[in-house]
Each structure stands twice: as structure tokens, then as C-alpha cells.
């Protein structure tokens, strides 16, 4: 009786908890044993984990070094520049959320919430003993307010904002880098001082932004009729795919200077960017090629029969469909690129993971019972997870949205 009504109205299960337990977990004697054992293990795991999370004193290491975690050895009196860039991103994200609604607004809301929660946390730890970022709580709260303002303003004048916003996003990367590095009127902060989350985000966003067009070009080149272009693309892709990222990073650090004149000195962050980009582009090219090959031949034929030339056919017909088909694969690749940037530690750059190691090996935690490496690594893992999870959820939402009307 109960099951029947449950089947008829699946949204309102009328099955009581005990019935559900008996039907699913304790229906036979061996299932009952397995259930009990698993429940016990789960209880042990969760209670120990929660106990540790709530009682450990090691968080103090993370809190004391919060600035280090976020920006590395970036000079404290210049950190406001990073804050300006974050505030800019918050404003642009907010405006975009207001203009485009849907997925973009969800992203903006999520970002705003994180900023807001961080500001609350920062407020509860004012400058007493610890040394958080200068004026961090106010900056964080301000950014989230800016973001909210952006959503509100963006939705009011959506029509006029679209094109300026797209241009702003395109300009954000160079301008952001310029503000962080300095030069024009601002004191230069050498890239060897960049570190922590800042470095991780700069490396991975550069990798994603730069490797995307490069990868698409390589994929198109590999399908080209011109033998030299095709040969070059195949050789490049197969060479890079045949060696590990660590090797590419080392090559960029050690071999690149050999090929360049003595006067040209490229700093190691740029070299790492180049390495990550070149590496990622080869894999991206193969993914894009897969997408292009999955299209029926008739698509290109129909476009050519209509009189579109080959460039138009590629840009208007085949490439958009191919990219749409490989969104999940692309995002998967971007997620792994984001995490792979932690390998730059071995060429002497101190990214998010590198800074974690710096923090837990500081002398002041030497006498701390059990050390503070668990807490530090836990926080770093949470940060990595937030970014990766956001990317993967967003890709899923984009997929869902695009499949509407597609079938």
C-alpha cells in the first residue's frame, strides 16, 4: 500500500524511515551485517574528522599566514593592487550576472557569497595578534557589495551594457596583469614575488586563455590540406603529448634561455606560463579535432554548397558545433590544467601548494603538537576544490542549457 502510493506520487514519499531502512539496508541478514559495519566505519570517520576540524589549534598557522597563502611574497604595502583587480573582477562579474542572467548570475552570486563569507570571517579576526591582509575585511565586504550593485545595475541597463562588458572582459587580463606587475607609474613588483593563490590563478588563467586559441589553430592546422602546415601541427602535437609537463617546464626554464639572445631575459613566471600554455594547447588541439571529426560530413558540404568559403564554413558551421560538442571535455581539461599548475614548484615557483609547504615548515610551528601541515593542506585542498567544482558545475549547466532545443 505504502509503496503503491509512493510510486504514484514520487515527489511525496510516504514511506516512513523504518520501512525504507528495512527494505533497503536490512532486507537480508548479510545485508544487515554489511550495513552495520559500514555505519560504524562512517561514524568513526566522520566523528574523528569533525572532532579534528573543531578542536585542532592548528588553524592559527593558516590564519597567521593568510596573506602568504593568497598572494605569496607580494609586498604587503602593494597588496591593494591585487585587491583592486579582485574588486574589478567582482564588479564585472556582477554586471555580467545582471546582464546575462541564468548561469552567469548563478556564478556571480556564488562569487559574491564567497567574498561576503570571507569578509565575515575576516571581521571576526581583527588585527589582534594575527596579521591578515591590510583592510581585508573592508575590501572583501566592499567587493561583495560592488558585485551586488553590479547585478542590480546590470539588469537595469542590460541592453546598453552588453558590448562594453565584453570589451572590458577582453581587456581585463592585460590590465589586471599590468596593475599587478606595475610599470606605468606604479612600482614594479617582480614576478618572483608573486605566489600563493595569486600565482596559481594567474598561471592557470593564462594557460586557459592562451592555449584555447592556440589549440583550436593547431586542430584546424592538423586538418589542413597544406602539407607543411599539417606536418608541423602533427609534429608539434605528438611531440608535446609524448613528454610529461614536468619536462616541458624544465625545458622552458633551462633551455629557452639558450635559444634567446643574452639581452632578452624572460622571467621564470612567464616561462612557466609559456610552458603550461604550450603543453595544454597540444591536448586541446586533439580534443577540438575529435569534436570536428564527430560532425557529419554533410554539415560542411551543405555550407559549401550554399557558397560559404572554407573560412566561413569553419567559423560559422563546423567549429561552433565541434566546440559545443566538447564542452565537458574542455572543462575537464581546464580543471586538470588548473591543478597541474602545482607542478611549477619544481622549477622554483611558489604557488598555492608551494606556499602551503612554506607555511607548515615555518620554525614557529616546530613545537606544535602534531605539526600544522594537516590544517594547511586541508585549507589548500578546499580552495582547489571550490574552483574545480565551480568549473565542473558550470560546464554541466552550460551543457543542459545548450541541449535545450538541440534535440
Amino acid at each position, binding site marked *: 500500500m505504502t509503496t503503491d502510493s509512493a510510486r504514484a506520487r514520487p515527489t511525496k514519499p510516504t514511506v516512513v524511515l523504518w520501512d525504507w531502512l528495512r527494505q533497503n539496508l536490512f532486507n537480508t541478514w548479510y545485508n544487515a551485517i554489511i550495513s552495520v559495519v559500514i555505519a560504524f566505519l562512517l561514524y568513526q570517520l566522520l566523528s574523528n574528522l569533525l572532532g579534528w576540524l573543531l578542536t585542532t589549534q592548528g588553524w592559527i598557522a593558516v590564519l597567521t599566514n593568510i596573506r602568504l597563502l593568497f598572494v605569496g611574497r607580494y609586498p604587503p604595502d602593494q597588496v591593494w593592487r591585487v585587491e583592486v583587480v579582485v574588486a574589478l573582477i567582482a564588479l564585472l562579474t556582477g554586471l555580467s550576472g545582471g546582464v546575462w542572467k541564468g548561469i552567469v548570475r548563478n556564478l556571480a552570486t556564488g562569487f559574491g557569497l564567497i567574498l561576503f563569507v570571507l569578509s565575515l570571517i575576516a571581521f571576526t579576526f581583527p588585527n589582534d595578534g594575527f596579521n591578515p591582509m591590510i583592510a581585508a575585511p573592508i575590501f572583501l565586504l566592499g567587493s561583495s557589495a560592488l558585485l551586488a550593485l553590479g547585478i542590480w545595475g546590470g539588469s537595469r541597463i542590460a541592453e546598453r551594457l552588453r558590448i562594453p562588458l565584453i570589451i572590458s572582459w577582453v581587456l581585463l587580463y592585460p590590465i589586471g596583469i599590468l596593475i599587478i606587475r606595475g610599470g606605468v607609474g606604479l612600482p614594479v613588483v617582480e614576478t618572483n614575488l608573486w605566489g600563493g593563490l595569486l600565482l596559481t590563478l594567474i598561471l592557470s588563467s593564462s594557460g586557459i586563455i592562451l592555449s584555447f586559441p592556440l589549440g583550436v589553430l593547431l586542430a584546424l592546422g592538423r586538418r589542413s590540406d597544406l602539407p607543411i602546415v599539417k606536418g608541423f601541427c602533427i609534429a608539434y602535437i605528438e611531440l608535446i603529448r609524448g613528454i610529461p609537463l614536468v619536462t616541458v617546464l624544465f625545458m622552458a626554464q633551462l633551455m629557452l634561455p639558450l635559444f634567446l639572445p643574452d639581452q632578452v631575459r624572460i622571467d621564470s613566471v612567464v616561462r612557466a606560463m609559456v610552458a603550461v600554455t604550450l603543453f595544454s594547447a597540444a591536448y586541446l588541439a586533439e580534443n577540438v579535432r575529435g569534436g570536428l571529426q564527430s560532425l557529419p560530413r554533410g554539415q560542411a558540404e551543405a555550407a559549401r554548397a550554399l557558397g560559404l568559403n572554407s573560412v566561413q564554413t569553419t567559423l560559422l558551421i563546423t567549429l*561552433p558545433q565541434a566546440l559545443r560538442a566538447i564542452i565537458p571535455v574542455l572543462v575537464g581539461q581546464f580543471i586538470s590544467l588548473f591543478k597541474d599548475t602545482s607542478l611549477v614548484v619544481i622549477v622554483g615557483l611558489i604557488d598555492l601548494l608551494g606556499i602551503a609547504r612554506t607555511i607548515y615548515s615555518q620554525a614557529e610551528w616546530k613545537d606544535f603538537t602534531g605539526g600544522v601541515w594537516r590544517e594547511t593542506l586541508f585549507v589548500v585542498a578546499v580552495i582547489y576544490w571550490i574552483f574545480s567544482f565551480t568549473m565542473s558545475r558550470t560546464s554541466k549547466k552550460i551543457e543542459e542549457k545548450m541541449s535545450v532545443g538541440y534535440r
Partner: protein
Amino acid sequence: MADQTNQEPIIICEGVNKWYGEFHALRDVSIRVRRGEVVVICGPSGSGKSTFIRTINRLEEHQQGTIIVDGIEMTNDIRNIDAIRRETGMVFQQFNLFPHLTVMQNITLAPIWVRKKTRKESDAKAKELLERVGIVEQAQKFPGQLSGGQQQRVAIARALAMEPRIMLFDEPTSALDPEMVKEVLDVMKELARGGITMLCVTHEMGFAREVADRIVFMDHGQIVEEGNPEQIFSAPQHERTKLFLSQIL
């Protein structure tokens, strides 16, 4: 319909040959199509009729012989090929609509990018064409939301939007459910009566009998027999034609 005045031909094919590796797909195909003529090409599968119609807009390359379309000779020069493609519309067996674009965008794409027309102009023209093929209410949908018959009618409208002088149909009804064949054939009949030059590969003999000026029968990559519908249907000359017609009718 059956205009017997001697006009200059719009399509001239002379001794066209094509090989796929060792396989001789087209053997010395020669045909002249007059302006406004409706030619139906039929024959058993594998007879080269689709290959032939696809050589006319260079979706297949021919290796020997000449093809001249509307005074432009088909050479390896991409400009000539593009010029010919602008004059010829093609409708495929598998529709080949662009699934990421709406019906409206499918139709206006080529006029905007190839003919350099304004969006407003092309939209108006697309509306008119959709009315003509009877599905103006589907303009904002995506191809995947339409039935096969509707998709094929959109494909016809898309080809017509370029205002071609010649329409090539490559088995336009073969992938359709039987109940949708008629709606597509009706559109094609209306087109044929409108005076456009049509080359049509099809097995729809009723359609051929009704609107064709000429029927061309192909087998093994060559033209076996051609003539007006009465000739072909009532008194086929060639054994192969007789056999084929007896199987299909």
C-alpha cells in the same frame, strides 16, 4: 512546361569521367540542360546518379571532361567553384540543416555572409520563403524540433534564399517517413512550375511523370537512356530501363 524552343543550355556536361580509386564511378556522362528545364535522374542505387549531380557544384571532383554551369567553367580555380555554387542551390537526402542555428538563421546565413545582404532584407526574404513552403510559424525553432518533412522544406527554403538559377535535389524524399513525402513533393512541384532549372535525383516516378521535361536513366556510371516521360514510361528502349521500371512501378 515542355518548352521545345531551342534555348542555350544552362548546364553543359561533356564526357565527364570520375574514378574512386579503381572504381569507375562516372563514364563519359554528357548532358545539356536548358534554362527552366526539369530533369529527373533515376536509376538503381550505385549507378552514379548522386555522384553525377554532386559534380555539378563540385562536392565531388571530376577527373575528365568539361562541366560548364551558366557560362562558368568548372576548374580547380576556387573563384569559379564559388561562383558556380552561388548559382546553384542543393537539397540533400539527409537535410543537412545546421542544428546550432534556428530555422531563420539557417535560411539567412548564406544571404548575409555570401550575398552581403542586410539582416533586415534577408529576414524579410526568409519569411516569404517560409510562407511559400508553408512553415512560417516554425521560424524561431531549431531544426531538431521539426519533423523530417518540415526540415526538408526548410532546407529547400535555405537553398532558395540564395536566389539560385539551378536547384539540385539529391534524393530529397528518401530519408522521409512515407506520410511526409507528399508535403515535400508538393513544394518541389510548385518550384518546377515556377520555371527554375531543376536537376532531381529521385525514385518518385509519380513526381517525374507529372513535372519532368526529361527523364535520364543511369546505370553503371553512364547515361543509358533519356527522353520525355511518356517515352520512358510507355516505351523504354533499353533492357536495363525496362527492368528498373518494372521493379519500381
